[in-house]
């Protein structure tokens, strides 16, 4: 049916709906262009490729690990900092059409939304599908990177169906696209004005309020159109009023010698125009990793003569490093940058799977530093695994597993059934030092004899004395314990005891002695080693390590007013009570 004739073109030049026959210069006034690609921001192209292949029936492209062919339109996934999803920009969503949408939606609902799953946008009544009178059945999903995708049941046009723009002036916008790229004026189902490029629609709806945000850096960074003769087309495009932001040029790291230009479309939509044969660029993990130091580093000193650790540091790079070495990576020294990027993205998606647009727009932490390529945090034991548990430790672990199982059966009777982190009390130690998906700031301020370590996440501050002081008595136990620090050369060593045992880290309890070593190994690097010694839990102490990076120039800790804004507690508990009522035979 559709596109069988253009398959060769797809395979050869990896482009979508190739309108003109190669070699024939367009004769119409406007450039005769066709969709080439949709450029999607993602830190793990491999994960994106499998997501679109698995869930939306796109096809992998030979020799390309960063793109898929969705029935003729290429989706290119580019690892670059993302500043949010598609909503609010001039490209509201892309759309795929299925002959049996009810079945497709059921299949996608079964995937679940966790991690790199499928998120559904539900209608007010909770359903994922709705009949649009006179048009078709439709519903919305999101990819894990924040791209809004409409799924419709339009048997006339199956596969990649349309790109839906969001415009302050929909009519004018469609006219502009037609002037600049050609396309055929048509009415979808006789109701909705649009342009047809091949058999893929371009539609435009009125932007809800204000001016659309730029697509640059968002989940859909730009749309790409292919032309046979870029120079000729450029002349026509200029005549039609297109504003060239990047002149036709072969991009760095391009896979082919085909050129690409960027123009600015209406409503802040970024558009690429490429020559036939364009096949994307090789991924360049542009955020440079901070070089490992080659010689011992002499850290700056405070005016009063102590090693100076002061500044704003972040654990962003370390987010995603597992505590234990994965069992299938027993000999690997380091991940490749691409593997590290994919791993951190996995951690990111696992952390924000249920988050709404505003969170995704502002709090994604993965653009600050190149992700660490460290395989695991544990450096001792040498196998990177937690040591064997004691018999008592085994019992503790079993009890914890039973409690977890019970929790899903019997939701929170009260706040005490939730973790101190969920309750915004404390992440405990070493938990509070661990990198998290957002609010990874760590600020150190020193005064003579004291080091204040402030963590942004749920705002916890530790005040560490570096001169010997009397320890707290046995009856005075706290979440973050009783720290005693001292300087060993340029390393701050902190030994902490007197934990109250209300938090635990992998089973550590009130008997833990935690020994931490903070060493500035370069101007921008703070190495953090932590040794957990809890003989009630493990047969030997174990040590983990990761690095904080200095980020004084742009990072400022914000006040993470966790408890003050803990709507989650109210919602979790009221949800649990609704389940109680349901189980008792009542309604929610």
């Amino acid at each position, binding site marked *: 049916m559709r596109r069988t004739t253009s398959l060769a073109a797809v395979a050869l030049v990896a482009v979508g709906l190739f309108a003109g026959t190669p070699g024939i210069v367009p004769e119409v006034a406007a450039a005769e262009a066709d969709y080439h690609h949709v450029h999607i921001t993602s830190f793990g192209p491999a994960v994106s490729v499998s997501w679109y292949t698995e869930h939306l029936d796109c096809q992998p492209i030979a020799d390309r690990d960063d793109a898929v062919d969705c029935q003729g339109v290429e989706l290119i996934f580019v690892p670059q900092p993302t500043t949010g999803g598609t909503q609010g920009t001039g490209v509201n969503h892309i759309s795929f059409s299925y002959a049996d949408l009810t079945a497709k939606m059921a299949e996608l609902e079964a995937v679940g939304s966790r991690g790199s799953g499928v998120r559904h946008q539900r209608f007010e009544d909770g359903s994922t599908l709705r009949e649009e009178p006179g048009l078709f059945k439709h519903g919305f999903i999101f990819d894990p990177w924040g791209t809004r995708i409409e799924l419709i049941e339009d048997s006339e046009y199956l596969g990649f169906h349309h790109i839906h723009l969001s415009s302050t002036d929909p009519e004018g916008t469609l006219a502009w696209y037609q002037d600049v790229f050609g396309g055929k004026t048509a009415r979808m189902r006789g109701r909705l004005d649009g342009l047809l490029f091949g058999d893929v629609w371009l539609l435009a709806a009125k932007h809800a309020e204000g001016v659309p945000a730029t697509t640059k850096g968002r989940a859909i960074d730009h749309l790409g159109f292919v032309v046979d003769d870029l120079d000729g087309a450029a002349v026509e495009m200029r005549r039609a009023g297109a504003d060239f932001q990047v002149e036709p040029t072969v991009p760095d790291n391009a896979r082919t010698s085909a050129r690409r230009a960027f123009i600015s479309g209406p409503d802040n939509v970024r558009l690429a125009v490429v020559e036939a044969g364009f096949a994307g660029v090789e991924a360049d993990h542009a955020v440079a990793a901070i070089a490992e130091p080659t010689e011992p580093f002499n850290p700056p000193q*405070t*005016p*009063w003569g102590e090693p100076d650790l*002061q500044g704003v540091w972040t654990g962003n790079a370390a987010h995603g490093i597992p505590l234990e070495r994965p069992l299938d990576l027993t000999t690997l020294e380091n991940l490749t940058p691409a593997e590290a990027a994919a791993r951190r993205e996995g951690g990111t998606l696992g952390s924000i799977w249920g988050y709404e647009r505003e969170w995704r727009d502002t709090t994604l932490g993965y653009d600050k530093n190149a992700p660490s390529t460290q395989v695991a945090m544990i450096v001792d034991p040498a196998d990177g695994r937690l040591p064997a548990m004691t018999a008592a430790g085994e019992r503790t672990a079993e009890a914890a597993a039973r409690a977890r199982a019970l929790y899903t059966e019997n939701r929170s*009777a*009260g*706040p005490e059934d939730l973790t101190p982190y969920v*309750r*915004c*009390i*404390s992440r405990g130690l070493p938990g509070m030092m661990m990198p998290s998906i957002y609010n990874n700031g760590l*600020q150190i*301020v*020193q*005064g*003579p*004899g*004291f*080091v*204040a370590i*402030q963590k942004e996440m749920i*705002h*916890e*501050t530790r*005040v560490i004395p570096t001169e010997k*002081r*009397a320890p707290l008595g046995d009856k*005075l136990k*706290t*979440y*973050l314990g009783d720290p005693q620090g001292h300087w060993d050369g340029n390393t701050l060593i902190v030994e902490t005891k007197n934990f109250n045992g209300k938090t635990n880290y992998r089973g550590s309890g009130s008997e833990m002695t935690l020994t931490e070593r903070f060493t500035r190994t370069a101007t921008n690097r703070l190495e953090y080693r932590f040794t957990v010694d809890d003989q009630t839990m493990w047969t030997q102490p174990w040590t983990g390590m990761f690095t904080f990076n200095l980020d004084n120039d742009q990072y*400022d*800790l*914000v*006040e993470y*007013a966790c*408890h*003050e804004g803990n709507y989650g*507690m*109210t919602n979790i*508990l*009221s949800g*649990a*009570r609704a389940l*109680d009522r349901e189980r008792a035979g009542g309604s929610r």
Partner: protein
Amino acid sequence: MKYLLTVVAVAVALTPTSMSAQSSDVPRAWDGHPDLNGVWQAIGTAHWDLEDHPSGPGHPDLGAIGAIPPGQGVVEGGEIPYRPEALQQRQENFENRMANDPEAKCYMPGVPRATYLPHPFQIIQGNQKIQIVYGFAEANRTIHMDKDDPEPPPIDSWMGRSHGRWEDDTLVVDAQGFTGEAWFDRAGNYASAALRVEERYTPMGRNALMYEATIADDTVFTRPWKISMPLYRRLEENARVLEFKCVEYSEDLLYGHLRREPTR
């Protein structure tokens, strides 16, 4: 006897600034400015009510333990210059304080309330920033001493955004960017998000600071007004700010109605 009287008379005559200027026993930091490092605490009843207040009843379950002790106000001129409609809000706050006082909910106390809560706080005076770690609600503040041209607060917050500078021996802090949800005391005195506080910390010798805070908020008050009180160094040899994560103790108040066995 005459000797003693003379000493007292001199002490009374000293204003905070003149005292520090003449005081040779003000500890000095590496750069010659006063060294404010240490554990400090206000003593008094400002945390109950910034204005003059007689004693009063507390929660009946607590007997005399919960009663409000009497206290002399710390407001210059005696009264907070509320706009009439704002005074009404203060009264409502007071009447509903058991449920609504952010302190009861273990919310961060804001500025200046954090200073005179009945809990110690520690100042860590670095060469670029000063960190104040309060005992209550894990509140903390960074006073940025290293921003020549202070940028506007990035977001509103309970503790605000603080920029500091030295004026002779006085640490002057400009604090703004508040959420407007914090109160000043248990009597329901409050301000809006338009609040701006200028604080002055002036050493009165080795073991006390004079604390002054000028409070400006056009939407709530008819003019800026000022409070002042001494802050005392905690002199115990083992003095420190102990962890007081009070969230646990607020959960019944906040979530008791959502327990399986409701407590509220």
